[in-house]
């Protein structure tokens, strides 16, 4: 009896331990730190919070690449060496899940050397995580969270370099109605803060423009069966189907629409802007689908070519995903602020509370030319750069839409 019970307890403990290991682990990848000359350099850590194993992994991995590129370049910079600091990156895998995101955030702030976080991707993760960072005065610069409410909670440490959904959604609606001539739309979202916000903004503007929203539905972000919804869409025969969500499910919706013979294209926001979308939906189904994404296409920007060259040298064979350049800029915003504070207060004070507060103030005053355009923040912490580009799938690749 007792031995049986003991075995049972041991088993539960093993399972519980296993569960802990698989859910909350933040993987450490230290880059940089090549302490060449400066022996006494102060280590300043920057957290990278992104979905790396679950969720929108293709975008999350890109964020990690972009930020690490910025950090390794900073460590090569003579000015940084002179200041006596060296940057280190710490990756935290938020799995696109709010609960895991908060765990990652708590791990980040428990490290006193960590002064800023480049992240997160999903608005649903960024919003709860931002509160954790605020309590420890750690600055957060998101390259990708576009839900408007992120910066409207009165937290002074929260910034983002991407345009928000209340700009992106209406811009998509204007493109759909005015440029593409779609007069009716069926609007679907994935029930996440990102997807719902985007779809709501789209529907509002589309109706205001004079278009007809023939249906408004919610699905789950992990759903794979949309056939019942597709049948409903087919019977209403809209000119375009708008999907607020991420490419994983969006691609399946596009495929099932096309399988059922619906000719209306699928349109979405930046969550669809990745090659994975086309792979999962299949070339035939994805062809002619639309998405909006923040900023100009990289190759149209002055610093784009430099970034592309540096990226290809650092990550041969990898394609630049939607947020690589934004993450590069977001990490640079933090790096520049750290440099300024190190120059003003001295390297040793950067990782103190005083230093962290000074970094937040320095980020708020950012005014730099980034890869994605001019980077500066308004009073809420939103970027002043509000450009949206419309993309379409052409010959199996996302390309900027030209009328």
């Amino acid at each position: 009896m007792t031995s049986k019970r003991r075995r049972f307890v041991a088993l539960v403990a093993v399972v519980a331990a296993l569960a802990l290991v698989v859910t909350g682990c933040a993987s450490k990848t230290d880059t940089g730190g090549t302490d060449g000359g400066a022996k006494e350099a102060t280590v300043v850590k920057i957290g990278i919070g992104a979905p790396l194993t679950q969720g929108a992994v293709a975008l999350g991995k890109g964020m990690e690449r972009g930020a690490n590129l910025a950090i390794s370049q900073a460590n090569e910079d003579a000015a940084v060496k002179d200041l006596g600091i060296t940057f280190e990156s710490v990756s935290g895998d938020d799995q696109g899940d709010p609960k895991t995101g908060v765990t990652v955030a708590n791990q980040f702030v428990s490290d006193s050397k960590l002064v800023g976080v480049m992240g997160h991707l999903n608005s649903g993760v960024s919003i709860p995580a931002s509160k954790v960072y605020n309590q420890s005065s750690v600055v957060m610069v998101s390259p990708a969270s576009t839900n408007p409410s992120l910066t409207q909670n009165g937290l002074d440490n929260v910034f983002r370099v991407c345009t928000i959904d209340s700009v992106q959604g209406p811009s998509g609606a204007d493109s759909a109605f005015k440029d593409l001539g779609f007069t009716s739309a069926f609007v679907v979202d994935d029930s996440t803060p990102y997807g719902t916000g985007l779809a709501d903004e789209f529907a509002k503007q589309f109706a205001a423009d004079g278009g007809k929203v023939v249906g408004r539905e919610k699905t789950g972000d992990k759903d794979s069966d949309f056939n019942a919804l597709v049948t409903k869409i087919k019977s209403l025969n809209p000119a375009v189907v708008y999907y607020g969500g991420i490419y994983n499910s969006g691609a399946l919706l596009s495929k099932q629409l096309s399988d059922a013979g619906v000719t209306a294209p699928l349109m979405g926001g930046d969550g669809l802007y990745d090659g994975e979308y086309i792979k999962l939906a299949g070339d035939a189904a994805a062809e002619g689908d639309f998405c909006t994404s923040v900023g100009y296409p990289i190759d149209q920007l002055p610093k784009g070519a430099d970034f592309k060259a540096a990226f290809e040298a650092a990550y041969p064979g990898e394609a630049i995903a939607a947020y690589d350049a934004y993450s590069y800029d977001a990490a640079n915003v933090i790096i520049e602020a750290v440099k300024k504070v190190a120059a003003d207060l001295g390297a040793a004070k950067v990782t103190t509370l005083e230093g962290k507060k000074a970094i937040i103030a320095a980020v708020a005053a950012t005014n730099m030319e980034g890869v994605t355009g001019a980077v500066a923040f308004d009073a809420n912490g939103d970027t002043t750069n509000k450009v949206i580009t419309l993309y379409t799938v052409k010959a199996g690749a996302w390309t900027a839409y030209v009328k």
Partner: protein
Amino acid sequence: MSGDVIVQQLVNGITLGGLYALIALGYTLVYGIMLMINFAHSEMFMAGGYVGLFVLKALTNEAWVGAGTVGFFTGGVFGLIVLFLIVFLSAAILVGILGVVIERFAYRPLRHAPRLAPLISAIGVSIFLQNAVLLWVDSKALPFPAVMPVVTVFKAGGVTVNSLQILILVTTLLLLAFLDTFVSKTRIGKAMRATSQDRDAAGLMGIDINQVIGLAFFIGPALGGIAGVFHGMYYGSVKFDMGFLPGMKSFTAAVIGGIGNLRGAMLGGFVLGILESLAAGFLSAGYKDVVAFAILILVLIFRPGGLLGESVVEKV
């Protein structure tokens, strides 16, 4: 809503229900014999999707099997049938073996432990398998190659039925018929029924209990594996966490039909699939899970044994 839309939603529901039914058979078969809910079963479904994907990729890779073989497989109807027979058989057999291995190492040592122990062990296996695929295969969704052409078989008004939908339905019904006959007519089927009634007494009568349980853990996962391949073909991708939602729904289907009862699992699968599709079509897509689980609660309140389940008399 017009009649066409209702019929089309029924077609959607029957296809989805067929997938649920195939998975539910695995839950119910194992429960019938072991009185244990195999929560790792949703991962058998996932594993089937991956095995199907890799076998299909290997067999259509010219560098591996030669251009002639690929040409044969993709060239005509006969080649395609052979190709998919191989894909389905390998998914069924490999996932079946996986099921037997899991039973041997994760459940058999706990056979005489309190009933909660194997349940927890099953959850552990489920988490382990998901993360194994996540770490060693890919965390991204992998596209399932559309090697088999999907043709419209029937089209009238707004209703279309394609070949894949018919294939799913026919396969599900054939497999149920086969399993039903196997359990009720054959000698080993009789041994399975005896084991499910009283494991210890069956053992005393000379039935090899380990063999019977092993067989249940081969057939159940094999059916789940076949459902996984269908899921990959029907929805076009496989992902390490693809088993979770269908697994939950199929478990629900098994309970609705009366867990332990093979025909009940089938009935429960179709009932759930059809109601879910109608709910998504006529209420809102957001309500389909609400409807599915509301039905589960209603069935449990009014027929606790399930639609086709026998009411169990409490033994004193």
